[in-house]
């Protein structure tokens, strides 16, 4: 069971996290590898882990941020960067 105090939302889906987890770490635990449409034509994904490659940029509360550097926070709305294309 997870309660709201230790989970955030990934595209509306609840993702639990542990203390000091980054968003990327929590998504990794949850088995989310493909972060969906990114800033350019390639899909976003975890890659370098140190904030250099910008490949893991997702929308955190409506603002782009590196998933690998951003601490997970309870109740946060985290989404694929671009609206899902049909």
């Amino acid at each position, binding site marked *: 069971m997870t309660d709201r105090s230790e989970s955030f939302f990934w595209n*509306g889906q609840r993702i639990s996290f*542990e*203390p*000091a*987890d*980054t968003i*990327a*770490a929590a998504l*990794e*635990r949850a*088995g989310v*590898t*493909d*972060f969906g449409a990114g*800033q*350019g*034509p*390639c*899909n*976003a*994904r*975890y*890659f*370098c*882990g*140190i*904030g*250099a*490659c*910008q*490949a893991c*940029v997702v929308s955190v*509360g*409506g*603002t*782009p*941020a590196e998933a*690998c*550097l*951003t*601490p997970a926070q309870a109740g946060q*709305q985290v*989404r694929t960067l671009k609206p899902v294309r049909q």
Partner: protein
Amino acid sequence: MRSMDVLVIGGGPAGVAAAAEMARSGLKVTLCEQGGALGGAIHRQPGNPARAVPVPRAQSARWHKLSALLAKTDAEVLTFHAFIGLDATGAVLVEDRRQGRLLVLRVRALVLAVGGLERVVPRPGWHLPGVVTVGGLQVMMKVTGRGPAGSVLLAGSGPLLLAVAAQMTALGAPPLAILERSRQVLSPLRAAPLLLWPRYLAEAAGYMRRLMQAGVPWRLGSSVQTIRPTDDGRLETVIVDGAGAVSRIVVDKVALHDGLRSNSDGLPPAAHATDRNPHVVLAGDCREALGGVAAIADGRNAAQQVIARLTGAPPMSSASRRIVDTERRAQQALANIFDFGIPDLLKLPDETILCRCEGRTVGALRQMLATDDQPSPREIKLNGRIGMGSCQGRFCVEWAGAMLAQQTCSAQPAGAEFIGNRWPSRPVAIRSLLGPAVADAISSIPPNESD
């Protein structure tokens, strides 16, 4: 925030060593780390201390000693603070990522110790989700204290592949195999110089023992040529072994690593203080990628430079410099058995992604280069959009430069010829640049999220 003499950027071994040494000499030091804890990529500590990833005893002892040294000083440590740049007026810009604000700092000296970068030679499919750097995989393990889920292939070249494979194994998640591109790793003639560095040999022997026990194959001369997504969300890799035989294997993750390199593109260059600017020193892997032991010594070197400059104290012992020189020779010996060379990129298929940020392909650059009129790096950047994406060229300009050199049989241009050293050295939130007070006062931004 208090007044300070020196700002150190980066909480890895070089930054911590520099900060501790300068603080001990009486300078007011502030250390900024972009993540939540000190340690850098090599000494990264887990969120849950019970879940520490096993590392060689000597390595953890070095870090304990170093962090204890820093703890005894009055150096200020700011976590979640990322370096943005040095502006024309000499102001050092640092983003406080938790508060969403920019610090504009005037200091007498700036030590940049932001760490090195992993090299990943482009090949078809390297840009896909599920493909990570070996270092990135290691960071994830160190942070979560868990091995990666599913089947993992490590490929490329270098000792990091062994270290990470051993750590995965210790966490109960051994990789399927390590594909080491070099065939020479065990060649006695080439490996002989490494006898001068028994520390490296002992470390490697420990890793190999663990991998052998777990039955993880270390396949020399093998490399991943192509990665393709499968219909069920996995990755099919095309592997060529030392004899040229081709095989295919489907995995959940591919971790790539083709060595480490310095990371000074986009940083202000080392320079003496001027009327406007602080004294700027680069330290550790960002200056020259020589590994953790050298980084500590290089941090001390940087500290001594700054101390001499700011206090007029005579330079101290040259011991640290000697360590850096020794480690450089060790890295050269390692480079001699591993394979950090750049393959013929002109042979890659057209559709291979060269710049992931902007989705620029090898074919597009090849077409640009196919003229009698040799374009400059700047023209390649502007017209080819190489180095214009959000990683600011950190993962593509080396390869674009190599293609230019291979096409024209000329020397490879430095990365800075493409991207220079402008600030921001990384993307920075407009909200932070304005400051939360200003951003809030201007408007309450209408939400664009449906929930």
